[in-house]
């Protein structure tokens, strides 16, 4: 559980990272002979200038919220889930396959069934890595990277060999009653691809927040992630906790994939690369520093940049890759938050020699956290 001013500290870092990222993008545009102000204006209007644009931004954010949450849950347990992309792909495949398998089932059964199939497939895929880590100590970084490739090529083989008609490389479109896109939403957003999945994502935010903060399982996941030895001392099963966290993480990533399958694309295609929602989900989670509300905001920001970025190359000759550079720069500054903290400390030097973390604690605690911390650590770590 974090105290409030730590959250503020993290928010400050995220906002600074975004601003610095935009600045770096501007510098690159200037150096390449493009007008950054003009481009950022067209990015902005492209992202929020019409109901259609807003619909697209929210559709873009929908799966990112889910993969971002997935990364955050695993990360709380000290588990670096690089396999979100593969888990999302497994969820995508499973949800579309389920919907295609029962073309005549009523929507109130088919849609939840397809969503559930996606979640379960994602969980099973990540569960493999969780099991290997818990029982054999296999590094999840390596196993999830490998499982990503297995997911990519296995999915392609299934799509081509089993789902596609004839020599095609895409599956048929799913039945109407299994689609998350509806005429109502299309009408509301001038024929955007906006779909009901956003409600699932927002519900997942609330469920994950509740799970992590209010349940014994969430307590155990956080405890194991922060100190495995003390968790064992307190009688927690670290194996069970690691596997649980990984299952939840994969379940969320699988849901993210189902959003692509049932909402955005409404079928599954042979992919040449892993779906970008996996790695973008990691970035969203890092930018949000793991906070559920932050993940929603960060996912929307990513949606804004991606959808608005399309407008840059429409309105000018600036290549669309510039937007990817801006996103990359934002992520770079999130990762390099030490630089931002350091700059912040330098700027505040005269009055506040420490990061804002302990700024409003009482004097007695200030003694403990600052003046003698070195001494305490020395005595205690022996």
């Amino acid at each position, binding site marked *: 559980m974090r*105290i409030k001013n730590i959250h503020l500290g993290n928010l400050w870092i995220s906002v600074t990272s975004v601003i610095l990222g935009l600045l770096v993008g501007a510098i690159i545009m200037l150096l390449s002979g493009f007008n950054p102000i003009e481009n950022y204006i067209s990015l902005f209007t492209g992202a929020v200038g019409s109901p259609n644009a807003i619909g697209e931004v929210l559709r873009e954010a929908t799966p990112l919220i889910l993969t971002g949450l997935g990364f955050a849950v695993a990360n709380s347990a000290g588990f670096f889930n690089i396999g979100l992309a593969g888990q999302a792909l497994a969820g995508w495949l499973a949800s579309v396959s389920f919907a295609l398998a029962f073309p005549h089932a009523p929507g109130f059964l088919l849609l939840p069934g397809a969503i559930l199939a996606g979640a379960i497939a994602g969980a099973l895929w990540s569960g493999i890595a969780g099991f290997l880590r818990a029982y054999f100590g296999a590094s999840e970084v390596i196993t999830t990277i490998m499982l990503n490739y297995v997911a990519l090529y296995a999915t392609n083989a299934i799509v081509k060999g089993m789902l596609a008609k004839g020599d095609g490389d895409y599956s048929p479109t799913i039945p109407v009653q299994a689609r998350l896109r509806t005429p109502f939403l299309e009408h509301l957003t001038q024929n955007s691809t906006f779909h009901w999945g956003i409600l699932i994502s927002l519900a997942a935010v609330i469920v994950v927040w509740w799970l992590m903060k209010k349940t014994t399982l969430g307590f155990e996941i956080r405890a194991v992630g922060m100190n495995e030895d003390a*968790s*064992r001392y307190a009688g927690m099963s670290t194996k069970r906790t690691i596997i649980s966290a990984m299952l939840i993480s994969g379940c969320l990533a699988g849901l993210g994939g189902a959003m692509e399958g049932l909402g955005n694309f409404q079928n599954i295609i042979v992919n040449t690369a892993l779906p970008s929602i996996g790695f973008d989900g990691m970035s969203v989670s890092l930018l949000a520093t793991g906070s559920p509300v932050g993940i929603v905001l960060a996912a929307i920001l990513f949606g804004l940049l991606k959808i608005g970025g399309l407008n840059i190359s429409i309105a000018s000759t600036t290549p669309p890759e510039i937007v990817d550079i801006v996103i990359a720069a934002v992520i770079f500054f999130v990762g390099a938050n030490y630089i931002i903290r350091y700059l912040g400390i330098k700027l505040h030097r005269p009055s506040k020699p420490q990061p804002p973390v302990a700024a409003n604690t009482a004097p007695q605690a200030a*003694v*403990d956290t600052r003046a003698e911390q070195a001494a*305490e*650590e*020395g005595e205690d770590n*022996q």
Partner: protein
Amino acid sequence: MSQSDIAIEVRGLTKRFGDFVANDHISMQIRSGEVHGLLGENGAGKTTMMNMLSGILQPTSGEILVHGQPVHLASAKDATRLGIGMVHQHFMLVENFTVLENIMLGVEETKGLGVLNRRAARDKVMALSKQYGLAVDPDAKVGDISVGMQQRAEILKVLYRNADILIFDEPTAVLTPQEIKELLAIFQRLAQEGKAVILISHKLNELQAVAKVTTIIRRGKVIDTVDTKATSTEKLAELMVGRHVTFQRDRVPMPAGPEILKISHLQVVDNQKVTRVHDFDLTIHGGEIVGLAGIDGNGQSELVRAITGLMPTAGGQVTIAGQDRTGATPRQITRSGVGHIPEDRQRYGLILPMSLVDNMSLQVYTVAPYSHHGVLNQKAMVTTTEQLLDQYDVRHSSIMEPAGALSGGNQQKLIIARELSREPQLLIAVNPTRGLDVGAIEFIHSQLLAARAAGHAILLISYELDEIRQLSDRVAVIHQGTIVGQAKTSDLSESEIGLLMAGETVPGKEEMLHAD
């Protein structure tokens, strides 16, 4: 004494962190050729002050004079140049380098073209080693040598840089009693050779052994500077904590209670297949404190981890209140009424980034009223935490602050509150007062004695012989993984326990020691 004897002097030294004053107009003089003690509780501001003298922190106001000259110490480099050297509590040594390489590190002499002049460095190190009685093997890798020798290497490192003012920050916290004795002799030697030695400590007996004068700091202010030898231990303690401190522990006689812990023929093998504990037998009754004395590394950690389910047993039996608990899980053991104050409070006892509420609930979060069907009851957790923090006087600013923000003493109090509040039939306390000041020690000892008086059985494992002798009804001595003797505390002298700890026999008492 003339003015020139003063090696370092501070005048009105003040350090603020925001609104908080860590050092408030501190003035003191440290003379060459003597050991100057700096005494204060955890959090009194000793380390802040020494960090200013060694250039790590810069004072908000006040001045520092070295050999009578006002100086500005902008960095540790400035301090080194002026002959000020600090021996940190955490050794700053590279494990894979030899002692000699570590000493040379950063001030390497070369023969040109970057070729190290090892011979010159070695000669200088050996000369210093001889002059000050600092025995080291210059070619041994630091990772392979004892903690005591690592510390001597640290001291040589400082001397090699021509320091004549040496600051030691709690240097004995990591040492065995024998190494402490050697270190105190080294301090006297350094002083005889004309060095100024500043010894930061809250261990009164060490200061009394070597410090000529002692300055007492409380809450950032100098309380007094006294002639150490002429001041009693009680007086020093009182100056340090600001109230009267008793060293007498009142152990009321207790009738023998039921057998709570029975360990028979216990064997523990670690994952390197090394036998750590073997043929270990021990019985503890309710209302009894049994002190397990031994030199660090003789199987104490493995014994505790085996009893508490954190490590598998290779043979033998552990019975708690009549129930066989051999090989049970940590949670089963906790539920059967065992409290455990672990050896390493930051690694096992607490989850430092988690809040005080979470840490206080660590052993009980799965049971009502703290959770129902897997959903936490935050209100119950908060109520209990507030009550226990209050009852055990854990100084904190908010129950939501991370446990890592507490001082060491308060962290330990939190663990003790958590473990004792469950009213365990058996309490296993490992070094419960390590690194704490006398005020906190007095409190923790009184809590242990209260648990004893309430009929609980206590296994006290400590590297502090004084602590064991003050608290225990019986003393058992562990050597190389097995008990080499046990007796009533009053039947064994300190030196007899010391002999047993070293694996020797005690003439004339063999039969008594193995009677149990």
